[in-house]
């Protein structure tokens, strides 16, 4: 399949982009920054083409469906969402410094899809439970929210690194001097979560609507449902702590990382460690 080969190529392209963003951080050259941005957009376009091609290929096989139906497809789509959201944010904020931390996420999930031995790139027909239009709404909103949370996790890591350096008193001496001020990073963590949280809510609601059609209950405390709710609780705690109890900085950055750990567990842990109705991605 050509699409699978394209996805493998995208892995290396994202790796190259991540390296470029790091080099940009080290040398602080505007030209390097533009190169990194350009490379990231090109990679995103190639990845988009790979996803669309896989869609076409599934129709050529006579089992046409959107490429959102198994672990492999969801990983590639997750990686795509992260890159897309990051690039949109980069345009909006006119700052490239988060790229060095965001692109590795896009790289990691795409690499996991194309390199992990347990994950098959084969296009499988849709089993009856997945034959629903809710599939698209549910998967797209969930992964967009996961991507926003991935970015907020990336910014939180930057925040904690910078905070440590500043406490050591080496302000401005190394790359952390290039990062935005702690306050802006803190604001950015909040704003990424303010996007991710409503999307996660829509993801859960569309999932519930779908479950109501497929399984006859909008909520059955299936492990995946429960973990999505746990994730929702963590980010609800984040928002309440920040907005009403005025938590800022280190504590909210740690909460945002905890939230992303919950996202990852919802995504992978439930599939690999727990059993339930959501055995597919």
């Amino acid at each position, binding site marked *: 399949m050509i699409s699978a080969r394209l996805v493998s190529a995208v892995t290396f392209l994202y790796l190259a982009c991540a390296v470029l963003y790091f080099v940009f951080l080290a040398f602080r050259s505007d030209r390097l920054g533009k190169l990194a941005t350009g490379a990231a957009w090109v990679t995103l376009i190639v990845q988009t083409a790979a996803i669309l091609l896989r869609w076409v290929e599934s129709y050529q096989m006579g*089992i046409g469906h959107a490429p959102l139906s198994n672990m492999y497809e969801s990983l590639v789509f997750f990686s795509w969402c992260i890159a897309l959201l990051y690039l949109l944010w980069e345009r909006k904020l006119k700052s490239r410094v988060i790229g060095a931390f965001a692109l590795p996420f896009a790289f990691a999930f795409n690499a996991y899809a194309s390199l992990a031995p347990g994950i098959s790139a084969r296009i*499988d*027909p849709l*089993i*009856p*439970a997945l*034959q*629903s239009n809710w599939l698209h709404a549910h998967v797209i909103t969930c992964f967009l929210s996961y991507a926003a949370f991935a970015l907020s996790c990336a910014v939180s890591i930057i925040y904690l690194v910078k905070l440590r350096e500043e406490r050591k008193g080496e302000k401005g001496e190394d790359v952390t001097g290039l990062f935005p001020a702690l306050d802006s990073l803190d604001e950015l963590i909040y704003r990424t979560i*303010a*996007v991710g*949280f*409503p999307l996660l*809510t*829509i993801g859960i*609601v569309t999932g*519930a*609507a779908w479950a*109501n*059609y*497929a*399984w*006859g*209950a*909008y*909520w059955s*405390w299936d*492990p995946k449902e*429960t*973990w999505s*709710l*746990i994730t929702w*609780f*963590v980010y*609800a*705690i984040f928002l*309440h*702590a920040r907005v*009403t*109890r005025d938590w800022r900085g280190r504590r909210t950055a740690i909460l945002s990382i905890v939230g992303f750990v919950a996202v990852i567990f919802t995504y992978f842990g*439930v599939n690999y460690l*727990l059993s339930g109705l959501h055995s597919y991605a």
Partner: protein
Amino acid sequence: MSTEKEKGFLPSLWAALSSLRLTIPLLIVLAVASIFGTLIPQNGTPEEYLRIYKVSTYKILRILGFLDMYHAGWFIFLLALLSLNLIVCSLKRWPSVRRFFSQPEIKPDEGQWKATAPGRRFSLSLSPKDSLARIQGGLLHAFARPRVLQDQGAWYLFAEKGKLSRLGFYSIHLSILIILLGAMIGSFFGFRGYVNIVEGETADRIFLRSGQQVQPLGFKVKLEQFSVSFYPTGAPREFKSTVTILEGERKILTEPILVNHPLTYKGISLYQSSYGVASVEKVVLEVVERASRRGFTLSAQPGVRVEIPGSPNSLVLNRFIPDLQGMGPALQGTLLEGERPVENLVILQSHPEFVPQRPGRFEFRIRELQPKYYSGLQVNRDPGVWVVWAGCFLMMAGFYMTFFMSHRRIWVRMMEKKGETQVEIAGSSHRNRADFERELDRVGRSLSEPSLRGEKENTKGDPA
């Protein structure tokens, strides 16, 4: 004596419930409890639990309600406490929010004017009275329709946008209560059950999931036919039950039920959930004795031993397999010689080409095989589901109001100074202040322009 004691029990309970200090620990406890709920299998049988846990652990988990945790008293209590906390917090906050609606601040605090940026203070060579119409029109054009107040020789104009976002908080929190209410309606007035119907048979009652009680449906469901199809890979493609709904003897409708395509009749929904083979009444096999090429047919019934004529052998069909690893229906059987099993057989219905490859005294092919399926239907009634969807919709609206709208207010003060009118602009936004500053600059520029857009050409020459 401490003031806490003077306040008494009820007021301090109110204080505790209305505190956000309670919300965060509650959410943490709910999250941690839910983690346990996903690690401990829920609603299993005692045998299943005893396979994983020691007897003592099992007993403790059962007493603590961890085996049906999400319906345990303490979990429901936590949800109730969260709801109460939410209600009390909302009530406490209401007066300060209501003020934005009932008495908008047309004249802001003095402090607002002190921070006025240079671009937002200018003079017009008109009297305040003449300037008023112009500023009013300008605000309407550039922002929103203003209200006017005259106070101590000064004119105040006030315009606002996105006031609704102040209610986002209420929408989200109210929506959670509505969703929980919908869930309660469902659990009190609805039911969840299942029924297995064999092809050609009719059911008028179902078994409830809770406590094995029987629930009459009020109508009858007849399974006309069940069918299952597979992809070439062996993965299932479609499970389909064609059912007829009957009222008494009258046929109301006949419709298919598929996964993701339930059938709802009189508020009761039927979902495709499982299937199986109820019976295989009769099988006709074509048998060929390899040595003699002698061929004949053999009628068999699963579980019943049949002699193979002209030989010391007999055959028992043990099991019917609806789909053997993607190769379609199969029969599994044993060939006996006297009382001694000599061969285990698998006979595929749709792949007779495999028969010659298999060694053995006889070749078996299936000529006729009619399994009778049963279909497992999930049967629910949930009158609360629309309440839940309404709650979800309100929650989305609340998120939009909270995260994507902001309450922006602009004040303009006009005072006479040396025959001219001094105009000052101030504003406030409770979110996205940086964006609002830009908006305020734009409004300021628009109001201080020599000629406002939208005014007629002939006013341009005026000595304004």
